[in-house]
């Protein structure tokens, strides 16, 4: 199997989808000539032309708003937000318009757009370029939310997102672009909305998504060396949320940890912890533990940055105590 980067898988997904579906256009800052700040759309303009790779001014609110209008009138736009941190300028267009249009208008029309963006820490980019804001999206009815952790999912989830009738927020992780895996993209993908059980074990279930899947797997390897076997669930999409898979494993194992890079309070980890605590109550031998980002902004200092979000080491350490 050929090795491929996360970045190239995303690029391939866009390329293939644009070849198949002529209504897809990409719209965002530096998506055309420049090829994307992280290179995801590199050279796509040469293949699909400047009318389909639309370089925009730096006008995030209007970029999302324009994508909404385009999606209502026949196109399937992929709007790119260079950093998820810029969501704050666009939440009106995203949450008040894109997310609510089908509903407010009584089902007359949908907004089949994909908002591609990237988040997370790892590049000393500071407080305004390192956030994990998926909780805002997960809390907004009407928006689907996909967050690929693997190279294959980068490809397949993006392809699937580009067939959905409703707006999908697609969040990549900035630290994963250069990650390489051997993948066979022609293999059947998991269905949209289904979690992947990345590892099986009987001592503990770790529920997570995006980059933290890799940290959880790394932690699980370390734990295995101490005789602790963890199940690692990669959620892949947070909306829809595949709670059935979570339930099955948590009920089987009785101990669960949820991991998210986002700020702990009122974040995705809270939702997962609450949901498991409610629904698997009688099966839990221990409280569900949240390992998440600190309730603080991210610093540029590498030490502070990496210290403020979960790592494989912390996951393993907490898991060890949880299963002791």
């Amino acid at each position, binding site marked *: 199997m050929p090795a491929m980067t996360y970045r190239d898988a995303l690029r391939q997904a866009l390329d293939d989808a644009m070849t198949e579906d002529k*209504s897809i*256009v990409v*719209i965002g800052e530096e998506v055309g000539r420049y090829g994307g700040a992280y290179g995801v759309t590199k050279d796509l303009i040469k293949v699909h032309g400047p*009318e*389909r790779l*639309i370089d*925009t*001014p730096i*006008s995030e*609110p*209007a970029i*999302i*708003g*324009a*994508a*909404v*209008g*385009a*999606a*209502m*009138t*026949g*196109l399937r*736009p992929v709007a790119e937000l260079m950093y998820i941190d810029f969501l704050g300028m666009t939440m*009106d*267009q995203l949450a*008040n*318009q894109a997310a609510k*249009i*089908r*509903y*407010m*208008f*009584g*089902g*007359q*029309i*949908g907004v089949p757009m994909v908002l591609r963006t990237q988040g997370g820490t790892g590049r000393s980019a500071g407080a305004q370029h390192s956030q994990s804001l998926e909780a805002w999206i997960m809390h907004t*009815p*009407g928006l*689907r939310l996909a967050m690929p952790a693997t190279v294959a999912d980068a490809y397949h989830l993006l392809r699937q997102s580009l067939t*959905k*009738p*409703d707006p999908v927020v697609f969040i990549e992780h900035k630290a994963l672009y250069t990650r390489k895996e051997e993948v066979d993209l022609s293999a059947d993908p998991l269905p949209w*909305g289904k979690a992947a059980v990345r590892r099986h074990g009987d001592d503990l279930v770790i529920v997570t998504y995006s980059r933290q899947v890799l940290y959880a797997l790394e932690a699980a390897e370390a734990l295995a060396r101490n005789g602790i076997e963890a199940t690692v669930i990669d959620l892949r999409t947070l909306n*829809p949320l595949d709670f059935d898979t979570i339930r099955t494993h948590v009920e089987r194992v009785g101990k669960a940890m949820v991991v998210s890079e986002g700020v702990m309070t009122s974040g995705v980890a809270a939702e997962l912890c609450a949901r498991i605590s*409610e*629904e698997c*109550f*009688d099966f839990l031998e221990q409280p569900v533990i949240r390992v998440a980002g600190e309730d603080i902004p991210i610093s540029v200092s590498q030490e502070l940055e990496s210290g403020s979000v979960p790592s494989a080491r912390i996951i393993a350490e907490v898991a060890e105590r949880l299963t002791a």
Partner: protein
Amino acid sequence: MTLTANSHLAELYRTMRRIRTFEERVGELFVRGQSAGSMLHLSIGEESSAAGVCDVMKPQDTFTTHHRGHGIFLARGADPKRMMAEIGGKETGYCHGKGGSMHIADMALGHLGANAIVGGGIPAVVGAGLSSKYLKQDAVSIAFFGDGAMQQGILYESMNMAALWSLPVLFVCVNNQYGMGTRIDQATRNTAFDERARAFGLNGAVVNGLDVEDVRDAARWLIDEARAGKPGFLSVEVYRFFGHARMDKSPYRAEAEELEGRKKDPVLFARAKLLDSGLESEAALDALDREIAAEMDATIDFAVESRAPALSSMFRDVYAVGEPEPEPVRARIDRVLAREDV
């Protein structure tokens, strides 16, 4: 229909009279306690902006409106019964009671939606313009908004994109002199809004909204230009006859100003023009007005008699049919509480 309608102005008059009468009925619906809430924004006094611009739109053209958009939608050909039902939050309304006055829409007429967010519907026309250009729809997309939205930054981002990409887009400001209690000169230093549009590379025009034919002529030029790839901006100067919404008595403006402002009445102006020019008779116009009154009376009955949407419809249309649906809170709780039988 007893009108001789031997002129296009008569058609425009009819449109404007229908708007005015409809809005009066909206007021009645509210007074009767049958409207969904009190956030009803009447476009009385602004009929010329709706009638004049919509008159030169083509069937394939699309548009968005602001919160004061009843008149525009009617001018575009909406069914006033379904509008009134929507304003009443009823199942028979355009949006089955989910949208209401401020979120009404109709894809069949190219109405991409009213908006309760000031400026919120503006950038959508940029996207519709992209669709039109890329999919060769030959459609112009028009954003209608109030003078208040002239101070929302997203307008300039949208204008800039439209100009940069040569999109078939028109921005129409229904300048009724006020945003709630704020007069335009209390919101901005320079009220010559067309200068802004030109500074961003668009065509820009200001037109007095008293004479609907002037509005129509200005709109025709700008829409033709837009269709050919040069987007434009039009400010239609009118006066908001009444309060901002149903509860507002406009204590912030002098009665003398209001009386003066209401003299700028595009409906009466068109009527007088029709009579003066001998195109229509007083009797014919009176008959038309009565006919319209009857039509609009019926909208209230329709709304009042329509059913509220079924409670279960609440979970519909969050996502497309066939897609995973939201689980009702009740169902979730039932499952958690029923767990003893595990």
